[in-house]
């Protein structure tokens, strides 16, 4: 392998962003050097990977554990390749290790190839189409829902997630409720039979405009409710005039 060539790679892509893991990195190192996977020099490849890793580590401390584990494994393989195999029958030989590595690379390469082939195929909704206006048979009533397994387990995931952060603080509302307004109006018209301006019901001691608006809205809503129930009548003589209320004479 030429040192020049190696430097070129490093300059081109001194980052792990483009790689889907250490085997992928090994694969592209092999490809960049036009190394035939079947006549692979494992030693060369291992050296390249380790050098690449060394440079990367200097730039990027957050290097994924996977790259380091592979690095350690390759360093071990390299030492095995350089030293004669020991006679211990128990330990894996460098040949076996190299074979495994080759297998992994070929397998990943195979998967990358077929994933491309797969997406090059004719695809539903792009090259061929399904029935655009499906009809559903009444016998098969259960088809009226199209909930998928994904919906089901996703929903469950969300329930569990929410359950574990359920502390919602609802602050006191400063707004005037329709229920309160109903009580005020009812009490007042128990003893009065005259027309009365809606605005007269708005409390005078409100803190801000928002409270005023909400009091007006809730009193108006309450008066409509009482009109609907037949207890009050309501009147506005012309556009923009005041709204007047009076108990309905039964």
């Amino acid at each position, binding site marked *: 392998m030429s040192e020049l060539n190696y430097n070129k790679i490093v300059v081109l892509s001194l980052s792990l962003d483009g790689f889907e893991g250490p085997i992928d990195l090994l694969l592209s190192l092999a490809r960049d050097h036009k190394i035939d996977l079947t006549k692979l020099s494992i030693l060369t490849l291992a050296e390249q990977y380790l050098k690449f890793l060394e440079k990367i580590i200097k730039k990027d401390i957050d290097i994924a554990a996977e790259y380091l584990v592979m690095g350690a494994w390759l360093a071990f393989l390299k030492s095995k390749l350089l030293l004669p195999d020991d006679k211990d029958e128990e330990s894996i030989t460098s040949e076996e290790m190299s074979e495994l590595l080759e297998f992994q690379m070929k397998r990943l390469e195979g998967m990358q190839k077929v994933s491309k082939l797969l997406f090059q195929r004719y695809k539903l909704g792009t090259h061929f*189409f*399904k*029935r*655009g*206006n499906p*009809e*559903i*048979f*009444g*016998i098969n009533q*259960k*088809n*009226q*829902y*199209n*909930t*998928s*397994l994904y*919906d*089901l*387990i*996703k*929903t*469950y*995931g969300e*329930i*569990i*997630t929410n*359950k*574990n*952060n*359920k502390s919602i603080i609802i602050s006191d509302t400063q707004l005037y409720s329709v229920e309160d307004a109903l009580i005020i109006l009812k009490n007042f018209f128990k003893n009065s039979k005259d027309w009365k301006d809606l605005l007269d019901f708005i409390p005078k001691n409100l803190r801000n405009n928002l409270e005023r608006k909400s009091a007006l809205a809730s009193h108006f809503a309450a008066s409509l409710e009482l009109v609907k129930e037949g207890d009050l009548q309501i009147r506005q003589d012309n556009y923009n005039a005041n709204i007047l209320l009076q108990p309905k004479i039964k």
Partner: protein
Amino acid sequence: MKKLKEKNNENYNFVLKQKVVEALIFSSSDPVPYDELLKRILDKNILNEILENLEKKYASSGVNLYVINNTYAFRTSLDVSEFLNIEKIVPKPLSRAATETLAIIAYHQPITRSEIENIRGVSLSKGTLDILLELEWIRPGHRKSTPGNPLTWKTTNLFLDYFNLKNISDLPGIEDLKNSGLLDKNKVIFNDQSAEEM
């Protein structure tokens, strides 16, 4: 010789055009206007011949070519539709409440109504269990031997069928959900017990 080739070519073209019209009408979600078809075929005579052919071809099929107001659509033929009771139903997703309830029953069965309410944090409206019962996705299980002997709920075989599961333990567990990104790891604090329950 040349003539024959041309003729063959013409014929091939006609067959292809007919296929295109057939495929267009099939895959369209609305009836296809004549003008829309003409845009592809260009020649009125050819298009008319194609449409006639298709009408004939489908006349004795389970699906017929209907002409409605100068638009074209395939519809199930009447002799079959009577027999099959065809309705126009637009499939809709289950309501959020029903999906949640179903998911909880699936993962925690047998489970009582109040236990479901506890997990969801809202009370269960009457319709929710009804929908699931009607779909035959859930069924009553044993009564629990706690005060009041509340009824428990379980999923049915139809539920497994519908979601294409061999049995209930094939549902992805909490760990699987976490790993496949369905649970936000950071937000959730698991205690060992709740994970055990799964």
